């Protein structure tokens, strides 16, 4: 097998994706479309969390915190000037600023990434469950800050009436970009360093891997994509509140990564699809039986079964054979 064949497979997949987007946009109703949009956003989230949690082995629960930062920043930037003055007391330079969606998303992502850097510098000296607790603390700090910074964020009421920019033509390219960056990272020497840190950090350090720097990069890249996903999310729901990005969401994303297989990009992708679609599939069942909440119970059951019978997740740490040049882990 040669790299050319590989490139061909990826191009085909991307084109098939474009075909799929064009097809569903012209056939299915808005409800199904919105679900597909959320699936896409969840893929961005899971694949980007996989960079920190999967490749580098840093168990982070802070992803929704980065989403919140990205979401709010994007919302401030795209909010129509006329409505801004009605709702918020912002500094004049911000109150008179209205950007198109794309630069706003980028700035949102960059802000989330910078926050990742700021948080990472002290927090990434910790490991294992200490790191999990510290990132959880970060998530809570972000929520409390947004709740109480009322002049800018409107507190618990949040921002609403955001322009509904997000559609599949926005979500799909970001899915492709996230997967592409993640893929390139995993199969580069830098990705190798990340994986070596996950497997054994002492050995990695002996081989000359800069532990701290590599960890920070993993967190910042993940945070950037989380911020972008937050912006997409906010403009899909068209409302955003401090409680939108909660601890429960953090667990949902972690579950997607774990079910797919920690460290596998394909796994995170499939995990995100499965878990976003499953909740909706159980909806008619709940409604016809009048047994609300049964979907969650079944989901939890499926999760337990997967953890018992396939603890390494659907794909383990690998990518499926037809996608990789050689059998790479």
């Amino acid at each position, binding site marked *: 097998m040669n790299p050319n064949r590989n490139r061909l497979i990826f191009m085909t997949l991307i084109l098939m994706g474009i075909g799929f987007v064009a097809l569903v946009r012209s056939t299915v109703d808005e*409800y199904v479309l919105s679900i597909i949009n959320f699936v896409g956003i969840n893929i961005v989230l899971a694949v980007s969390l996989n960079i920190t949690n999967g490749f580098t082995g840093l168990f982070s629960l802070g992803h929704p915190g980065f989403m919140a930062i990205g979401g709010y920043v994007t919302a401030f930037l795209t909010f129509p000037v006329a409505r801004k003055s009605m709702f918020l007391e912002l500094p004049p330079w911000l109150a008179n600023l209205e950007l198109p969606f794309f630069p706003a998303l980028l700035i949102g992502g960059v802000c989330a990434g910078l926050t990742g850097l700021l948080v990472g510098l002290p927090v990434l000296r910790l490991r294992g469950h200490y790191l999990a607790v510290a990132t959880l603390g970060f998530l809570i700090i972000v929520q409390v800050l947004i709740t109480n910074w009322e002049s800018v964020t409107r507190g618990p009421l949040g921002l609403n009436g955001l322009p509904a920019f997000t559609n599949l033509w926005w979500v799909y390219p970001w899915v492709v970009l996230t997967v592409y960056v993640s893929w390139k990272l995993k199969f580069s020497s830098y990705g190798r360093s990340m994986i070596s840190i996950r497997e054994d950090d002492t050995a990695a350090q002996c081989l000359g891997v800069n532990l701290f720097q590599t960890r920070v990069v993993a967190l910042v890249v993940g945070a950037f994509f989380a911020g972008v996903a937050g912006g997409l999310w906010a403009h899909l729901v068209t409302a955003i509140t401090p409680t939108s990005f909660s601890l429960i969401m953090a667990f949902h994303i972690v579950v997607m990564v774990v079910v797919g297989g920690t460290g596998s990009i394909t796994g995170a992708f499939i995990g995100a699809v499965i878990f976003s679609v499953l909740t909706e599939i159980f909806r008619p069942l709940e409604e*016809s039986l*009048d047994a609300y909440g049964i979907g969650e119970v079944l989901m939890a059951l499926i999760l337990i079964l997967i953890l018992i019978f396939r603890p390494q997740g659907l794909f383990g740490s690998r990518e499926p054979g037809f996608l990789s040049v050689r059998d790479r882990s």
Partner: protein
Amino acid sequence: MGKKIGLCVFGVMLSLLLVFPVLGAETIKLGALYNLTGGMSSIDAPALNGAKLQAKLINEKGGLLGKQVEVMGIDTKTDQKAAATGAKKALANNVVAGLGYGDTTFVMAAAPLFQQRGVPFVTSGATHPMLPQWVGDYMFMTPFGDDDQSFAIADYTVKQLGAKNVVVWTDNSMDFTKALSKFYKQRLEELGANVVLEDFFMMGDKDFSAQIARLNSANPKPDAVFISAIPNEAGLTVKQIREAGLTLPIVSGDGFDTELVTTVPGDKLANDVYFSTHTYREDNRPEVLAFVKAYEKEYGRPPENAFAALGYDAVGLIADAIQRAGTTEGKALRDALANTRGFKAVTGEISYTRPSGVPMKGVSIISVHDGKYKVEEVWFPKQ
């Protein structure tokens, strides 16, 4: 091997259940968006029960415009993302109107989508007075606005209880409780009473001794304390204030409309508590008695709280408008809703005569003495 066969059978059964949708004759569909699971479920689940009960009673009387009414209950899991998809699902099913929610943040995730499509949305329990202005002219409220309930209890505090100096406690974690305090203070100022001290707590707090100590040493001595809280903190604050030996009147809004106000402190300590709420509890209008009786017959228990009655009223409002409009078309239905005058709802008469879109509706002032609830007066807004 046996395990695999078992799983397959399970899977097949499941997919069979999923494939059979509820089939039926042509019906008038109402999309009811509620958080039936998660943190808001204690408020939203009774509301959906109330809504379904109203639809059932209407159908027993022959339905609307010769068709049966179907309330499509959609669980949005106390999650805004689910609220947005739920709204899209309802709209994709061609509902003629939407209803739902006891909290403003969820209405704001769902109602704008209805507005966009020109389908009316009636919230059963969200009370922010700015809601109709934020969403647009297809948005209607069943309950009164927070400003009305705050004004009602503020008037009562000053005029009936004769309070000059008041302490205000606010739950700082919710928009609802913050708004309540804001409107209360505004009215006190208009009436010439003073706010001696402001204190804060967070949802979930269990110990209020610090706030009580400050309340005790407040100068000048307060004549009443206003507590802006939701049910969980309502019982606890009453209990701890009375246990500390303070006897000043405790006043609040509909967050105190719960059994917890008497059950947590016990009948002896539940004294001198006054709150403004929906005209429903301890009320003996025929609509109220009929509703309670029907609810008990259907579900085998009395209505859990006022939100059950509000859900019932929301469907009632829509049904009344459909009847008057003679059609279920969006624009005509909206106009009929906006022209609602003197609709006899369980939670009081509803008229949409204000430009703000908030209904003109009476507010009950209820007192608690020795663990007994009593309606003291019904307050009406000025215009």
